[in-house]
Structure formats: structure tokens, C-alpha cells
């Protein structure tokens, strides 16, 4: 699983407060006291007072923006984008004019400050976007919807090289060990292109289609909306930083939406190394079709880069693992590790044991496993 310790959000918040004070307070101070400050540092007085005041005013505004981010970071994420652009432009122009000898070195302080804060704001933005994915990647299994459990799960996936099916076998093992029965529906593309091994031309076609997100269509899944499964698990592999086209085709067909709407759903992603975007794509599709997401897992193939990346290229080119033979000793496996497989078994077990959201106001008689009073003795 992908989760490690990171800088707490409050550190970023207080860094925003720091630049808010610096920008707002500093520019107010600059407007009031620019003459003694410039004299002290030996900088020439501004030639164009209007532009000087304008820049101070704009910079003050960025301070206000940073303060708003400090107050409510999860609600003001777009303001961080504005802050990134503003500070990057300011830093760029500062260094540009300083390099041309048109700016006193004193102003480098502000350029450096804004360059550093461009990075800080960027890191904060990366931290704040899609926070629900962080919860899922922490390993949490969320409560399921309040509907009767049938202990039946549906798997929907496509596996071209066997990595995805290997992952799903382990999830199945976990579910079945906790009393679930599993029905699998493999996506079958209507196009003959998606097969392995493939030719170089086919590989290039798949690659270009994956990059430009050209959709495909699949044979009907023939799962009715009123199906008996209380859990739907979808797996996708990663094709050029995105989810595989046959799996995406499941969601692009409106006829399939009823399979997921109102049901507990879970996402499994496998890849060589770039798992984040395909996971996000799969999860957002599941949410878009009305699925109630309860868990997600993403696994990379084992091994160290760059040999892991090149092992994938050799595998795709040769059509089989361990080729060419003379490199067999250093090529890395093209499937998830044994540890990942064990974690997926645990994932399946956790999915089977997931709790239910209790809907307030629902009569006790409609809740399963209710505690009833013992029958009066005869």
C-alpha cells in the first residue's frame, strides 16, 4: 500500500499565515516607509510611483489570498493555484530584471521568498487535492450502504497480461474466507486490438489510444440493475498513466450504471509504477456512476527503478517474462509481489467484514442483527 508519513497540514497552514503576514503587512509597511527603507539598503527610490503602489497593492492582495487559504485550506484550493501563478511570475520577473542589472539586489529577497513559496504552495495544493483518496490509501475500509447483505460479490475487470487477474484472485480468496461467494465478469472488448502478446504496431496503437484516452466498447456485461450482489469490486491495470480502455468502457456505457448505483464498490489497481492517476480515474468513475466507495488498493510491480521500467519494456516486447534470456537474472517480475498478494487477501477479508452506515430514523425492525428481548420462559 502507498502511505507514508508526511508533513502535517498545519505546517503548511502556518507557512501560508507567514507569507500572508509578510505580503500584507510587508507591503503596507513598504508603502508607508519605502523612503527610509530604500535609503537604508541603498536602493534607488521608485521612478514610477503609480507602478510601485500598484505592485504593493497587488502583493498585499496575495497576502489576503494566503490568509484565506490559512483559514480554510480545504475550501480555498483554487486560490492556491492563483498564489502559485502570482508568486512564480513575481519571482521570474525579479530574477529577470536583476540579471539585466535593472534591479537592486535588495529586491532579490522578495524574489527568493516568492520562488520558495511557489514551491510551498504547489506542495500544499498537491496535499489538499482529492483528500478522499488519501483516506482510502491509508487502508481504511469505509462503512457500506445500509441495505441487506447477500454476501455475494461481483468482480468486474480486464486482465491482458495476468497481473490484474492475479490480484483479483487474492481479493476473491479474502472474500470467500469470510463467507462471500464471488461472481466474475471479465470485460471483453469488441476490438481485437487488446490482446497479449502483441505486435509493435499494436503496441503503438494501444499506447497512442491510452495517451489520448480513445475509448473502446465492450460486449454487454448482462448484469441487471437488480442484481443480488452487495459488493462490486472493479480492477484496472495501468496503460500509460491511465486506466485500461476496456475497464473504462464499462463506465462509459450508460447501460452499466445500474450495476453500481447505490451499491458498495471497491477499486483495485495494478501497475508498473505510476498508480496514482489510474486509481483516481477508476475511483471517480465509480463515484460518478453512483457507487458507494468502501475501499481501494493500488499495487506496483516489485523491483527497483530503472530496471523495473525496462523489464516492463522487455516483457511487452518479447511477449513473455524473463526474455531475453541473457538478462533473465536482472529483469524484475511483471506481477505484484507476494506481500501485495497477502495484503489483497486481507483487503478481501476487510471488505467482507465492512460495517454498515446506520441511517438515522430507520425503525429498529428494519435493521439486521437487531438485539431482541429474550423470549419469556414458558
Amino acid at each position, binding site marked *: 500500500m502507498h502511505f507514508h508519513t508526511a508533513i502535517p497540514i498545519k505546517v503548511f497552514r502556518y507557512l501560508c499565515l507567514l507569507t500572508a503576514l509578510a505580503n500584507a503587512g510587508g507591503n503596507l509597511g513598504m508603502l508607508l516607509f519605502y523612503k527610509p527603507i530604500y535609503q537604508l539598503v541603498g536602493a534607488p527610490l521608485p521612478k514610477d510611483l503609480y507602478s510601485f503602489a500598484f505592485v504593493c497593492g497587488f502583493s498585499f492582495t496575495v497576502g489576503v489570498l494566503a490568509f484565506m487559504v490559512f483559514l480554510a485550506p480545504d475550501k480555498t484550493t483554487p486560490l492556491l493555484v492563483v498564489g502559485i501563478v502570482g508568486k512564480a511570475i513575481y519571482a521570474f520577473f525579479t530574477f529577470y530584471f536583476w540579471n539585466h542589472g535593472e534591479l537592486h539586489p535588495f529586491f532579490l529577497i522578495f524574489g527568493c521568498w516568492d520562488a520558495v513559496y511557489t*514551491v510551498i504552495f*504547489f506542495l500544499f495544493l498537491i*496535499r489538499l487535492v482529492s483528500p478522499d483518496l488519501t483516506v482510502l490509501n491509508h487502508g481504511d475500509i469505509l462503512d457500506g450502504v445500509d441495505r441487506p447483505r447477500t454476501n455475494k460479490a461481483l468482480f468486474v475487470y480486464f486482465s491482458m497480461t495476468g497481473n490484474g487477474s492475479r490480484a483479483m484472485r487474492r481479493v476473491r480468496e479474502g472474500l470467500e474466507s469470510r463467507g462471500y461467494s464471488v461472481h466474475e465478469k471479465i470485460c471483453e472488448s469488441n476490438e481485437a486490438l487488446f490482446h497479449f502478446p502483441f505486435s509493435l504496431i499494436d503496441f503503438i496503437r494501444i499506447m497512442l489510444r491510452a*495517451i*489520448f484516452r480513445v475509448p473502446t466498447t465492450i460486449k454487454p456485461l448482462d448484469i441487471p440493475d437488480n442484481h443480488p450482489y452487495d459488493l462490486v469490486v472493479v480492477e484496472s491495470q495501468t496503460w500509460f498513466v491511465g486506466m485500461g480502455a476496456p475497464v473504462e468502457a464499462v463506465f462509459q456505457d450508460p447501460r452499466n450504471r445500474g450495476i453500481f448505483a447505490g451499491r458498495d464498490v471497491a477499486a483495485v489497481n495494478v501497475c508498473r509504477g505510476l498508480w*496514482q492517476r489510474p486509481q*483516481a*480515474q477508476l475511483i*471517480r468513475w465509480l463515484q460518478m456512476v453512483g457507487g458507494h466507495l468502501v475501499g481501494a488498493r493500488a499495487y506496483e510491480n516489485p523491483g527497483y527503478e530503472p530496471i523495473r521500467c525496462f523489464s516492463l519494456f522487455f516483457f511487452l516486447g518479447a511477449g513473455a517474462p524473463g526474455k531475453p534470456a541473457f538478462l533473465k537474472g536482472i529483469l524484475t517480475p511483471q506481477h505484484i509481489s507476494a506481500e501485495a498478494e497477502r495484503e489483497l487477501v486481507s483487503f478481501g477479508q476487510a471488505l467482507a467484514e465492512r460495517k454498515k452506515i446506520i441511517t438515522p430514523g430507520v425503525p429498529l425492525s428494519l435493521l439486521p442483527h437487531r438485539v431482541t428481548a429474550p423470549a419469556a420462559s414458558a
Partner: protein
Amino acid sequence: MNIITWFIHNGTWGPFKDLLDLMSLPPERTREWLMFLGAFMVLCELTRLALATVFTRSVLAHVIRCLLTFAIQAIVLAAVLVWADHRYPGRGWINLGYALLLYFIWYLAGQLVLLARPDTEGADLGFMTVGALITFPVGIIAALI
């Protein structure tokens, strides 16, 4: 037509000419171009990682992310090495050293994100190596010619 020509002729082209000159990696402006290219590598990597979980259905966002995986950085650096060797022959090998430094900055930028978000890919050394296979052979050929 004259007014269009006049408009274009009087445009602010200085910075672009200056950028082209800077990208020839003049030895007397090393600090400048190193800062500029370093910032370029950092911003590319941070943009790539920022696009990881957003605009999931946008083709444009996906294409940009794919290009930022290695293509943009690798091709830009390769073009810079060729241009620099054309303008300042004999500095090809030194410039290759700087290109390696920029690749290291690229890697650091990706790894920095690991500090910010607990679930992130970080730098992708695999595709960076693919990028290096574009940049450095081109740079070596430019240095040899």
C-alpha cells in the same frame, strides 16, 4: 496590413530573444540559465504530480501529464544541449554535466512531494531514465560533432 506589420515590429520580443540567447548556455551567465532550467524542471515535476488525481476525465490533463512524465523535460534539455553546442562549441561535455545536475534536480522535486502528501508516487526514476536516453545521446552526439 501595414498596421499589423508595425504592431508586430514594435512588440516586446526582447525577452524571447534573450531567452533564446540564455538557452545557448553562455558560460558568463551560468547562474542565470541554471536557475531558469532548474525552475523549469521543478515546475514540470510539481505540475505532473499535481495533475495525478484531478481532472480525471480530461483528455488534455491526461496528455499533459503523459508529456510531463519525461517527454517535455527530456526533449527540451536535448534541444538546449544542441543549441548550446552550436553557439558555444567545445562546451558540450560541460553542458552534459549540467544536464545531469538538472536531472538530479528533477528527481529531488519529485521526492520532495513525498514530504507533502502521504499517498503519492514521488519521482519516477524509470521514465526519467527513458528521458535520459533521449537527452544524453543527443547531447553526446552534439558534443562529438
